[in-house]
């Protein structure tokens, strides 16, 4: 049966991804983050803790680099040798980029991380054996490993605190890799509801926790293949294409210079699903 299946659908099984000839249908979840609006306030990160049952590891484990923030806010300084950072700092929210050709997926020995039909990089906790190869191969280092058994650790979820846990999201025990899921539990609920009505999810119907919290609305999230979605329009306006490692912007002479959409480490060809919009700083002062 499987061999039949293999032979019958041979061309499909030999198909490379992502390419234009087989676009995602009907969903491809993607994000765009406007760094000009992002204030670095950390609301998204805390919202992520609340939504996704992230453990608070405590000072000692944080010191060992074992923090579990799926969404971390990075703060960069200018690297000129002025005394004062008189153009402020640069903030960058960094989470799993849900790459279309994710380096983490190929290396997992047990196939616990895969690419879903709606363009997410899935992470199946109960399948994971904790080889941490995915983390080793992630250029963004956005995968977080459960170094300890947080559910039973003191003071992570003591009595009452555990009642806050989101029942739609597994509480991960020790030895499992985890990462940003684009709030897949919300996507799942929204897709289910839409399907019952015989349609696809409309733009704005589903928000990720970080997007919902973001006071400056710097994060937009939606279905990239839906021409009505804000994310689609933004990607289009910035002429960023999912399956290219070089965009119009990179070809300055062809008029790409007024665009500010870019993807981090595009040159490594992971085809990330998160587009960042460059932070703008006033030239007049």
């Amino acid at each position, binding site marked *: 049966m499987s*061999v039949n299946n293999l032979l019958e659908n041979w061309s499909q099984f030999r198909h490379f991804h992502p390419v234009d000839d087989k676009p995602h*249908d009907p969903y491809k979840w993607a994000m765009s983050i406007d760094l000009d609006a992002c204030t670095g306030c950390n609301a998204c990160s805390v919202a992520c803790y609340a939504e996704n049952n992230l453990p608070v590891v405590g000072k000692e484990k944080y010191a060992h680099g074992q923090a579990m923030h799926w969404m971390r806010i990075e703060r960069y300084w200018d690297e000129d040798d002025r005394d004062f950072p008189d153009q402020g700092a640069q903030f960058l929210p960094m989470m799993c980029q849900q790459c279309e050709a994710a380096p983490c997926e190929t290396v997992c020995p047990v196939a616990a991380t895969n690419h*879903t039909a709606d363009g997410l990089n899935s992470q199946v906790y*109960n*399948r994971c054996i904790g080889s941490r190869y995915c983390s080793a191969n992630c250029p963004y280092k956005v995968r977080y490993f459960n170094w300890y058994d947080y559910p039973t650790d003191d003071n992570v979820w003591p009595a009452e605190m555990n009642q806050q846990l989101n029942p*739609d999201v597994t509480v991960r025990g020790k030895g499992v890799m985890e990462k940003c899921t684009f709030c897949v*539990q919300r996507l799942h609920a929204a897709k289910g509801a839409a399907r*019952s009505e*015989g349609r*696809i999810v409309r733009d704005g119907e589903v928000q990720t926790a970080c997007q919902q919290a973001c006071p400056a609305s710097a994060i937009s999230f939606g279905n990239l293949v839906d021409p009505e979605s804000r994310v689609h329009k933004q990607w289009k306006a910035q002429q960023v294409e999912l399956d290219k490692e070089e965009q119009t912007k990179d070809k300055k002479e062809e008029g790409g210079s007024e665009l500010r959409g870019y993807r981090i480490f595009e040159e490594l060809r992971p085809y990330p699903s998160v587009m960042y919009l460059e932070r703008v700083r006033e030239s007049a002062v």
Partner: protein
Amino acid sequence: MHRFLRLSTLLIGLFAAVGSYAVDAPQPAPMTEDDLGPAIEQPIEFPHNRHAGLRNPNDPTNSDPLKGGMEIDCMYCHTYARRSAVAGIPPLQKCIGCHQSIASVRETPRIKKLFEYWDAKKAIPWKKVHDLPDFVRFSHERHIERFISQLNRPVQEVCGYCHGNVKEMTVARRSKSLAMGWCASCHQKDHPVTAEGGKPIGNQAYWYNFQKPAADTSGGAVKAQGPNDCWQCHK
């Protein structure tokens, strides 16, 4: 010498058998009715057969409690199933709602016990019979949408896909394995997408594996498999 030939034939045979089984692995036989889960003691021995069982044609008044049921729709009590991931146990008030006006059984031990709970305003601590692992995301709503609304199948049949023939049980007992391979054995069948009398599907997503289901050459019906990606069922 023959001994060893036998041995080697055996080994090669085993090798080949394991291999060919392995290649064809993902069709474990669906568990049969015999594969019942353990009997579970519930606080009240609820007679599913009496409530959902078929009417006894010889007893139009349905008076004999030992014979025949009342053909109550599964979703009359498990009302959450069509709107929620879980089917849910009806609130106690629902039981009382009917039973306060059924005088004939009012004094039976089970109903007395029921009213004791009601009077104490205590929820009945029913035990879960079909308890999936915590990392599984199963939605009753989706399956009911798919099979009852779209394919227009009878309710008891659809519920029975996973719950077995509950209408003949008293306290429900697990009759399917509910293990992953068992789920997949159904997901990988080519089910028709819609059937006569079913709800139209509109522009919704129902295909997986990056391919739209093709129309079956013979009947022309569009068929599709169930979802196959990990995150569909695992959280």
